[in-house]
């Protein structure tokens, strides 16, 4: 009986650890951005990307410009 309880407790600990790992990764960008298609940007010069005014940099043709570039 005691053995079974210990086995169950061990199993619960493993499951909790597994859920923690899954949850941490799920809330990170890795999982969220899995549906983002990086190839979608390869639209040539007319990809419609603009550099909006903001702190930080956009890199356009290898040169920095103040701002940030977004894409859906």
């Amino acid at each position: 009986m005691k053995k079974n309880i210990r086995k169950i407790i061990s199993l619960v600990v493993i499951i909790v650890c597994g859920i923690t790992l899954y949850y941490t990764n799920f809330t990170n960008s890795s999982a969220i951005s899995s549906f983002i298609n990086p190839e979608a940007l390869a639209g040539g010069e007319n990809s419609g990307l603009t550099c909006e005014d903001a702190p930080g940099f956009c890199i356009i043709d290898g040169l920095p410009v103040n701002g940030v570039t977004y894409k859906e």
Partner: protein
Amino acid sequence: MKHKIYFFTIATAIILFSCTSSEQPVEALRPEEGQEAIKMEVVASFEQWGINNPRGIVKSNHSVAVANRTSHHNISLVKLGDFTRTDRITRSRHNGQALHTNALDGSASHEITALNFQSGQLYVTPQTGNEWRGTYCIQLPEGVQHLTAAKSGKRIVATGLYEQGRYLLYSPEDGSTGYFLSYPEHPDHPGLDEYTKSALYASSVLRIRPDGQAFACSDMRSGLLDICRIEGDKIERIQQLCFYYPQVHISGNSPKNLKIAYDKNTIHGFMDVAVSNERIYVLYSGKSKKQDRYNLTHCQTLITFDWAGNQTDLRSLEMPVSNICYDAEENTLYGIGYTPEAAIVKFIL
């Protein structure tokens, strides 16, 4: 059998938890509910000096230096309790002047610096007591693109679009240069070359500790904070903290056709940093373009770390703040707050 089960359980728990420790969820950057916000005191409105679009602040004694985005000069120097304003670095393409400067910094005592990232010239304005002396400039190594820089004594630490390493340690006196460490990886885009990573993490804030022995570098588009020490003529990493990576679209395979665009859902991160010899103060946005397109830079969370990378405090702010600086004389932070008009605010820490 019993021992085997316990050993197996403990080993599994250790392995799983060690996997999670390198990345922490954004939830970790949310102040606890019910915790009292940091109180702030409005010191003066920028309007009284005719400064409309401040971006960057340094305070020392009763003097304040402000990066000015839209006026005829890049930097404005003002004194508290005085309506006069002195401007520096004319906004111009001519040599010795600058169309844009960034990285206004005053972490090293008795001088402020600002970088013309287009020319690689670092403008230095020394301070004696309450008086600002003439501004001179130092040319950083040519042939590479510098994006942010800070000076401490005779040494300059910079970062930019470097392929040789993330950080440049430069000594203008003897011209010695060294590049150190690499840019952070991105788990969604494994195997990026150093140039692509440099462009991905181009929006950095770099502050040298007042004693000149260490520095902190944050990324505005993510929850990345790099803490490094300067050991002789080398830079070594103390701790790289990663709360989350940016959501980003990357295409192109050469510097000329490389395109980096951040997803509108990406959470903007560590927008500004201030440092004392004991602490690193980080201003966290926590907003995405989709959530709040007009006030991304208006941060309402302040995170404090020690120089070993341990988080010592996480508090919300009484009002939105876009930039911060550390005032050694008063052992507190000042910043650009919004009432909603832009004003100099003092943190009651």
